[in-house]
């Protein structure tokens, strides 16, 4: 979209000379911020000004008597960054295939207990060791299962179709879907899923909707393999993770997809990680008062 701000600025200058207009703006912007030449160039579009400077010009004009409506067209309305490509099943498959392809090189994958011991407290570490022992976490097998599904998706995209006779329910009584924990603490969720339909689950994945981690939401893997499960049978999906950095209540949502990341079932499972504390979230104080516009400091 063409930038019309130069023409708008020219209109706002009116009958004033460039010199006079530049002087008017300099009273607010400060000397040297916008020279006559740069101003003239901006009006014709020959010179590109940063959006922040356009905002300063708008503010200077308001201070000199123009209305906010007069100068509204000087404000940028374009997004500061081009959005990422729209997500498609193929894009998600490619993204996670690239990540999964490199997982085996990672320190935390090769030495999980060492990483766990760094990420948790001495009091909690024995608990995690027993979890790892109890579930017999075979990382190589787990990664193989994931990579097999992703490779299948890449080579067979489009061959899967959702079936109306497919069905899923979650056995919450035998699952651990929600967790109350300290912020940034490790956790392991257990999702016990029942195949309630008449379609066998083969080579499926659980896909987490949204970013795998933010400062406000927990970290979990973005994709996890679903054990092959016949109709009427149960399976258990383990979801390892780390609670959010800031104390909060956060939701994480998983859907079940085919290897090509197309959905096999409607709906999702939603898990809650509660890292709230009694403490309030506090702002950071200034170390000293800032002087007022006249250089005075409040008493």
């Amino acid at each position, binding site marked *: 979209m063409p930038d019309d701000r130069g023409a708008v600025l020219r209109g706002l200058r009116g009958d004033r000379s460039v010199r006079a207009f530049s002087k008017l703006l300099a009273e607010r912007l400060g000397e040297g911020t916008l020279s006559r030449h740069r101003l003239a160039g901006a009006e014709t579009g020959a010179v590109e000004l940063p959006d922040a400077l356009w905002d300063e010009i708008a503010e200077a004009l308001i201070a000199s008597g123009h209305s906010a409506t007069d100068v509204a067209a000087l404000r940028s309305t374009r997004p500061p960054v081009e959005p*990422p490509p729209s*997500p498609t099943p193929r894009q998600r498959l490619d993204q996670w295939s690239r990540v999964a392809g*490199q997982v085996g090189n990672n320190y935390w994958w090769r030495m999980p207990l060492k990483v766990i011991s760094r990420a948790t407290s001495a009091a909690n570490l024995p608990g995690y060791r027993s979890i790892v022992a109890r579930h017999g976490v075979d990382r190589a097998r787990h990664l193989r299962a994931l990579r097999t599904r992703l490779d299948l998706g890449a080579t067979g995209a489009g061959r899967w179709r959702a079936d109306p006779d497919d069905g899923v329910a*979650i*056995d919450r009584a035998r699952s651990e879907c929600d967790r109350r924990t300290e912020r940034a603490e490790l956790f392991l969720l257990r999702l016990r899923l029942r195949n309630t339909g008449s379609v066998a689950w083969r080579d499926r994945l659980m896909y987490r909707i949204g970013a795998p981690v933010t400062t*406000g939401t927990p970290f979990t893997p973005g994709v996890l393999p679903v054990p092959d499960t016949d109709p009427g049978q149960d399976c258990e999906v383990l979801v390892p993770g780390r609670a959010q950095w800031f104390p909060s209540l*956060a939701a994480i*949502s998983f859907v079940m997809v085919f290897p090509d990341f197309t959905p096999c079932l*409607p709906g999702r499972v939603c898990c809650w990680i509660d890292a709230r504390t009694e403490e309030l979230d506090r702002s950071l104080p200034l*170390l000293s008062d800032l002087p007022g516009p006249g250089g005075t400091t409040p008493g």
Partner: protein
Amino acid sequence: MRQLRVAAGDDLPSAVVILNQAITTLYPDAESAPGGGGKPRPHLVDRSFLLTVEKGHHSRLDLGRLPKWIKEGGVTDKTTLYTSRVPEWLVRAYDLAFCADGYLTDMFAWSAALLPDQLRDRPRRLRDLPAHVPPGREFEFFAEHFPDADERTAAVLRAQAEAVVGLRERRPDPGSPWQPTSGDQSSSRDETPEGLLLAPGGGLMAAWVLHNTGTVPWRDRVLYRVGAYPGGVRTPPFVVIPDTAPGAAVRIEVPMRAPDTAGTYRACLKMGWPDGTYCLPNTLLGLYVTLVVPPGDLTDPTTEWADHAG
């Protein structure tokens, strides 16, 4: 950026491979190495480049030319000010490479909006101030993104429209100047969970309880939305905070509307005065809420699976 990169795996050479694949996908003409001068252009990266960016040393802020409020605010450890100015193309590449679902590009929009405000000699925003609200069109100003607001949302927006009328012409009181002071402090409790899944264009009433835990009475204050952009979470440009004495608390509601495009988004609000000066400039983030809009190809993702009694 580092948090998402490490979440995908902490091996830096592997991250370089994944990131360069993403760069090539987004920018087929990407150069093989950084060029000199001029506008940043997409290029392939190496381990050393990533470390520089993630440690805050890439094109960083010139610490010799700090704005007055930072110098006078008594920053003793300048390493806390290290921050890389990351080019837009690299943010998009990280987002795609490490499956950030648009979260990094959304945060880039926030930082691009806040940086010029923080670099002024007084930490201050210049757009969407109470004085910019057209007289007689206050409700339209607040309700711009909520054309089909339900009764509750409409009531909140009407209350804001009424509150801004008195604020528009307000000037600072000599006994209560509009300048950040060391005794000012806000503490908050979120009432809105993080990570909520919303349908495209879906509505949410986010809420916080703000406690005045400082020594300064809160008068003439608003919560400014920082980093709004077309395509992001839609909110009113600001909401008015009722006057709140030290030791008291106030509950604030902010109507929000999810974007129409799938992704992970965050809306941030910072406390400020009617002239745009931020009250608590040391607190970068302020209040925030993270929302997720699911991809359109998923079937009914906002409905939860039934419970099976085993």
